[in-house]
C-alpha cells in the first residue's frame, strides 16, 4: 500500500481503567473505504476518538498523513473531516451559514460558487441552502456535512454510524456520496452497524471484537463483492 493516509499499529486505549481498544491495527490508503463493524462497546467510536485526539492512547502507534495526534494534534485534525452520528450542524444557521462558519473555523477559504457546487454535487437542492438546519432531515444534514467535507478536501473522512436513522433510499444516496469522495482520493473510515450498507460500499470490512480487529474481509472485484453469509455469521458471533 503506497502512502497510507491512516496507520494504526497495535493501538491501546483505556477508559476508566478498562482497555477498550486493545492492540487494534489498521492501515488505510487514499481512495479506500473501510467499514468498521462491531457490537456496542466494542471500541469502534473509541478508535475514532483516538484518531481525532479526543482520547489519549495508552500504547501502540497512530499516524494520520505521517503525523501523530499525540504530538501534532492541530496538523492531524486539519487532515480529518469528521461526521458524528448526530451531524453537528447549528440549527439556527442555514446550510450555507453552517458551511461558511465551519470552513472559517477550519481556516479554509472557499468561494460562494465552490460552496454551491459542493451542495449540488451532494444533491442538496438550492432551496435548502438558505434554510435553517433546524428544519433539516438527517439525510439533508448529512449531505450538508459531506459537502463540507468535500470543500475541506481532507485526505481522511471519519464517519460514526452515518446511516442510522436513514431510510433505505437516503442510505443509498449517502453511500453513493462516499464513493464519490473515495473516487477523489479520500480515505474513508466508517464505523457502522449497517452490514448491508457496508457490504455495498466498503472496500474492506473489519470486525472489531475484544478491542481489536478479529476478522477482515476485502471486496471482490466481481459481484457479489462480499460473502454476506460469512459477514453475517462473523457479525453474529461478536455480538
Amino acid at each position, binding site marked *: 500500500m503506497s502512502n497510507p493516509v491512516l496507520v494504526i499499529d497495535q493501538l491501546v486505549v483505556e477508559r476508566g481503567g478498562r482497555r477498550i481498544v486493545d492492540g487494534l491495527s489498521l492501515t488505510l490508503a487514499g481512495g479506500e473505504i473501510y467499514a468498521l463493524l462491531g457490537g456496542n462497546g466494542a471500541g469502534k467510536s473509541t478508535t475514532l476518538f483516538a484518531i481525532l485526539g479526543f482520547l489519549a492512547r495508552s500504547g501502540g502507534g497512530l499516524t494520520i498523513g505521517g503525523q501523530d495526534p499525540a504530538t501534532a494534534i492541530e496538523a492531524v*485534525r*486539519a487532515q*480529518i473531516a469528521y461526521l458524528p452520528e448526530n451531524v453537528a450542524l447549528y440549527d439556527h444557521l442555514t446550510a450555507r451559514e453552517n458551511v461558511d462558519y465551519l470552513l472559517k*473555523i477550519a481556516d479554509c477559504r472557499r468561494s460562494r460558487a465552490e460552496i454551491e457546487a459542493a451542495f449540488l454535487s451532494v444533491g442538496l437542492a438550492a432551496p435548502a441552502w438558505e434554510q435553517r438546519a433546524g428544519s433539516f432531515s438527517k439525510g439533508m444534514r448529512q449531505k450538508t456535512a459531506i459537502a463540507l467535507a468535500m470543500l475541506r478536501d481532507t485526505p481522511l473522512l471519519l464517519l460514526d454510524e452515518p446511516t442510522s436513522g436513514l431510510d433505505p433510499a437516503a442510505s443509498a444516496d449517502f453511500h453513493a456520496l462516499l464513493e464519490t469522495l473515495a473516487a477523489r482520493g479520500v480515505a474513508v473510515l466508517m464505523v457502522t452497524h449497517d452490514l448491508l450498507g457496508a457490504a455495498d460500499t466498503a472496500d474492506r470490512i473489519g470486525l472489531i471484537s475484544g478491542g481489536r480487529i478479529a476478522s477482515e474481509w476485502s471486496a471482490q472485484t466481481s459481484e457479489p463483492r462480499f460473502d454476506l453469509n460469512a459477514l453475517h455469521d462473523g457479525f453474529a458471533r461478536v455480538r
Partner: protein
Amino acid sequence: MNRALTIAGAELRLMLRSRLALVGIATLLLLSAIAAVTSATQMAAAAEMRAEAQAATDAQFKAQPDRHPHRMVHYGTYALRPVGPLAAFDPGVDAFTGTLLFLEGHRQNSATFGAARESSDLVRFGQLTPAFVLQTLAPLLLVFLGFASIARERERGSLRALAAYGAGAWSILVGKALALGVAAALAMAPAFAALGWAAVQQPGEAGIAALTALSYGGYLLVWVLVITAVSALAASAQGALVTLIAAWAIVVVLVPRAAAAWVGVAEPLPSRVDTEFAIAADLRRIGDSHNPNDPHFAAFKAKLLKRYGVTRVEDLPFNYRGVLAQEGERLTSQLFKDYAARAAAIQNAQTETLTTLGIISPALAVRRASMTGAATDLGTHLAFLAAAEAYRYAMVQKLNGLQASAVASADDAARSKDPIADRRTRISADFWKTIPDFDFSAPSPGERAGAMAMPLAVLALWVALAIGLFAFARRRLERAGL
C-alpha cells in the same frame, strides 16, 4: 484569535435569532433607558428643588428684620445636601439618609426628608437607576444569555465537532466570552450613556466617570468569565443554569443584605433615640447655663470676674449673657461633635468592613466604587453633616459674639420689661446679610478617586479569580481532548 472571533460571531448570531435572548436584551435595554431617563429627571428635579430651597432659606434668613441676636440663634436656618455630581447614575444612599438639616442654637438636629421616608415602599426595595440595572439586572441577563454557550455545544455533540475542525479549547472559551462581552457592552450602553452625559455636563467629573465605567466593566467582566467557565465545566446546560442562578442570588442579593445585617450586629450603631437620651444625660452633667447655681457655670463666671477684676457681671466690659451663651454652645457643640464623631467612626468602620466583604461578593465592591464615584456614599453624607455642623457652630457663635459685643448688658437684662431697652438690643437687619450662606461641595474628584482605590482593588482581585477559573475551564476542556 480569528477562530475566537468567528465563534463569537456565530454565538451573537444565535443570540439575535433566539427570541428569548432578544427579548432579554431588549428588556434590559429598555429598563436601562428608562432608568437613565427617570433617574436623570428625578435627580435634576431634586437638584433644582434643593438649590431653590437653599436659596429661599438663605434669603429668608437675610431678610429678617432688626432682631436680638439670640432670637436669630433660635430662628436658625436650613442646610440642604446638594445632589452628588453623578447622582443621576447612582443616587446611592441619597434616598435613605435625609437631605435637610435645621441648624439652630443648642441643638444638633437629624437630617430629614429622605425619599425612602417620603415615598412608597418601592423606594426601599430598590430604585430603578442605571447603577441598579448594571449591578443587579445585567448579571442576571448575562446568566440567561451565556449559561448554555458551551454546555449546549457539549450536549448536542458540536463541541467535539468544533474541535475536529481545528478550534481549540482557548478559541472556544474566548469566542463564547467575547460574544457574551458584546451582549454585556450592549446592556451597559444606556447606563454608560447616562454616565457619559453626566460627565459632559460636568467636565471635571470625566475622570471619575471613567473610573466608574472601569469598575462596572470589571464587574461585568467577572460575570462574563465566570458564566463562560461554568458553562464549560458543568455537566449539562441545566446544571450550569442552576449553578449560575444560585451564584447570582448569593452574590448579588443575599451577600450584600446579609453583610449589611452582619456589620450592623458586629459594629452596632446606637439608635437615634438612644443617642438623644445619652446626649440629654450628658447635657445635664455639663450643666445648665441658665441656672446661676450650676457648678460649672458658676465656676466659669467666677473665673471671668477674677480675670477682669470685678465682682459683678454687669461690670464686665462685655455682655456676660453673650459670653455665657458662647460657652454653653461650645460645650454642647463639643458634645454633639463627639457623638457625631463616634457615630461616624462606627459607620465608617461598617463601610470598610462591607468593602472588605467585597472579597466574597463583587457586587459589594462595585456598589462601593459606584457610590463613592458618584459622591452619593455614606462618607459624603457624613462630610455634609460635619460641614453643616461646622457652619451651625460658626453661625451661632458669631451671633452669640454679637450679643456679647454689641448688646449692652443692662439693656439685655431689662429688655423683657422695657420696650426701649428691648429696641436697643436689636441688631440691624444688615448684619444678617453678612453671614455667609451654607455651601457644601462633595469631595473632589481626586479625593473620590482615592476612596475608590480599595473597592477597585477588590474588583481587580475578582477579575484575577475569574481569569483563574477561566484558565481552569480551559485545562479541563483540553484534558477532554479539545
